[in-house]
């Protein structure tokens, strides 16, 4: 008997994937730009074989499961793909198939259960969601009185580091005299973590519920802290076009500055470099608003890292990676902090809670005090008013 290698072509899988991704795989002509541009190649010898995975998906052959959960959905490959293949859709589609067959990375079912039972991905009690705002006396959103809803998001509600971002933004909004409210403990989860790990069916359910809450409360204009929440509200919510007008807070603050409502009076003598969050930049094309804010603050010198804007290196926290362990040698954020260090900047600014958390962890590898990681909301709050003598 001769050993015969038979390749099983899984037509069903191919068809399912084609349906799930709107035919995204068919367009790829296998040039490999994706694999070459993927940041995993910077940290892993056996990189993330994006092209091969797409090919396996095109043919309907197994193998695509192996590295499926590495992708941070940073979109670097999509930005460079000559065929405009929606590669992230392919990864999300494959992940959806993995959910259907119960072959997912350890830790991810727990992430979804956390959202299911506690309405946040951090396994925190829903009754403590508004604890970050204790003492701030924030009004509950009222559509008849408020210009915007401040949508805080799960990470800024619960993560002590990210809570500071929310509090800084509150003081900036207050200083600009913005009429706004929040939803306190009633704030629903946007579901981005669920979408990012590819459970689209569950995401649809969350999006439906959350959209209904917004509708019931009369929310149209909402300002969000995390680019991840912003992205799903803008691009993945069912009724986004109808009535939701989400803005990332950097966009909103930039508007306030150009309208003359927000002024920075304190000069901050800082050399700052800026990390473009993937979901603000590559996913939504917003590169200028955060830089406008930094430029409006007297004393700040803005310098760019060797990769920036559409080629800015991801922090490593997207695509569900915030809930999976990445060994130290493979953290993008370590490289990013080194890039920041090379600019001579003492402050690494960003505008995303995930970036802040990842970069701050990596900045601890540098000598103490060498690199401060700050969210733009925090820098803005520092520049608000001259301290009283």
């Amino acid at each position, binding site marked *: 008997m001769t050993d015969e290698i038979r390749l099983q072509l899984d037509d069903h899988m191919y068809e399912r994937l084609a349906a799930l991704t709107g035919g995204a795989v068919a367009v790829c002509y296998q040039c490999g730009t994706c694999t070459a541009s993927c940041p995993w190649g910077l940290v892993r010898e056996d990189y993330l074989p994006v092209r091969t995975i797409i090919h396996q998906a095109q043919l309907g052959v197994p193998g695509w499961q192996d590295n499926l959960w590495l992708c941070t959905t940073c979109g670097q490959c999509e930005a460079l793909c000559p065929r405009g293949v929606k590669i992230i859709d392919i990864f999300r589609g494959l992940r959806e198939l993995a959910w259907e067959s119960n072959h997912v990375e350890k*830790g991810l079912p727990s992430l979804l259960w956390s959202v299911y039972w506690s309405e946040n991905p*951090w*396994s*925190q009690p829903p009754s403590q969601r508004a604890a970050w705002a204790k003492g701030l006396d924030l009004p509950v959103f009222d559509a008849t009185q408020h210009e915007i809803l401040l949508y805080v998001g799960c990470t800024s509600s*619960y*993560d*002590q*580091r*990210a809570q500071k971002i929310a509090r800084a933004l509150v003081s900036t909004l207050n200083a600009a005299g913005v009429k706004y409210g929040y939803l306190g403990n009633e704030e629903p989860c946007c579901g981005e973590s669920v979408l990012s790990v590819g459970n689209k069916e569950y995401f649809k359910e969350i999006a439906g519920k959350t959209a209904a809450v917004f509708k019931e409360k009369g929310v149209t204009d909402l300002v969000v802290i995390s680019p991840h929440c912003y992205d799903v509200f803008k691009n993945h919510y069912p009724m986004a076009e109808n009535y939701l007008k989400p803005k990332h807070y950097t966009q909103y603050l930039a508007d306030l500055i150009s309208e003359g409502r927000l002024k920075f009076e304190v000069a901050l003598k800082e050399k700052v470099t800026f990390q473009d969050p993937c979901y603000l930049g590559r996913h939504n094309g917003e590169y200028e608003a955060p830089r406008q804010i930094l430029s409006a603050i007297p004393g700040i010198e803005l310098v760019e890292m060797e990769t920036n804007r559409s080629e800015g290196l991801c922090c490593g926290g997207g695509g569900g990676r915030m*809930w*999976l*362990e990445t*060994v*130290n040698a493979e953290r993008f954020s370590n490289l990013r902090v080194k890039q920041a260090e090379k600019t001579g900047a003492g402050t690494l600014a960003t505008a995303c809670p995930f970036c802040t*958390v990842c970069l701050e*962890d990596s900045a*601890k590898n540098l000598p103490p005090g060498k690199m401060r990681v700050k969210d733009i909301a925090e820098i803005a709050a520092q520049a608000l008013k001259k301290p009283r003598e």
Partner: protein
Amino acid sequence: MPPSRYRENEESKAVWVYLEQEEGTLENVSLEVLSKGRELADVMKWKLVGLLPGSGVHALAKEAITRGADEIWVMDHPLLTTFTIEGHGAVVYDAVMLGKPSIFLLGATHNGRDLAGRLAVRFRTGLNADCTNLHMDEKDALLVSEVSGFGGGVVAMIEMQNHRPQMATVRPGVFALSEPDSARRGKVIDVPVNLKPEQIKTRILERVRSGVVDLTRVPVLVVGGRGVNGDFETLKKLAEILGGDVGATRPPVDAGFIERERQIGQTGVVSSPKMALCCGLSGAFHLLVGIDKADVVVSINSDPEAPIFEFSDYYIVGDVSQYLPVLIQTLESQQEISHA
């Protein structure tokens, strides 16, 4: 409701304690329960009896007497060498039916819980599990058990009028050990054991008593962070003194100072110790998730701004390498005093 196998009017005025042993050593919690049992018995002027099943366990009877028992009922049989629910269940049931004690207490160990849950149904009596305190209602001669539920969020006092024995299991570490009194005298009673091999349905194929790290339920968790500078030996020593184990934050795990299975937090172990002792860690959110459920959090860190202090019950601003040796020394000398 249907009566228990024997009722309060048939009870003997005594407190019984199940003495669990493993390879010739009594479980600590059994001695703790014995100490508490002595207190309860003294309040009522009752007898305290220890129930000791095993194989070749006579020597342990003396130790139990020094801890306050008036009588030890020894059930010695080769089939009782290691704990099986069928073997130990059968002989303990028979002994209790013979002695009909008012109160029957067990340590809430893995085996103690198995035994108690099964026997309570066999006696058709009530059982208060994992109690955090016990006392006597002297007037009615009833045992009052304090139990907690909802993750410690609610406490309840529970008693039982007519069913016997009044059973309770006690969480390890809740009660203090009494000082052993070597002059104490008690009676050792050999109880005949009628056990046939075919009664034991459960076979033990393998038994490993060490090497498995389980940080989820250690009483004391000593967590080391970056500020420990890789010196986990000192932390291990401290953990050993306190009867706990060592965990770590991400940086020392990354640096290879300690195994990844000891990483605490969002992508590691979520622990619920009585005390978390945080050494040289700043307190990132993904770490805090792992010690959220600790009853008490104590921390030492040189950075006065460390977020961990917000999350601590007690804290010291200072260098871990300076404080730990002193702390270990102090704890060790305390130990010597209490053992003297």
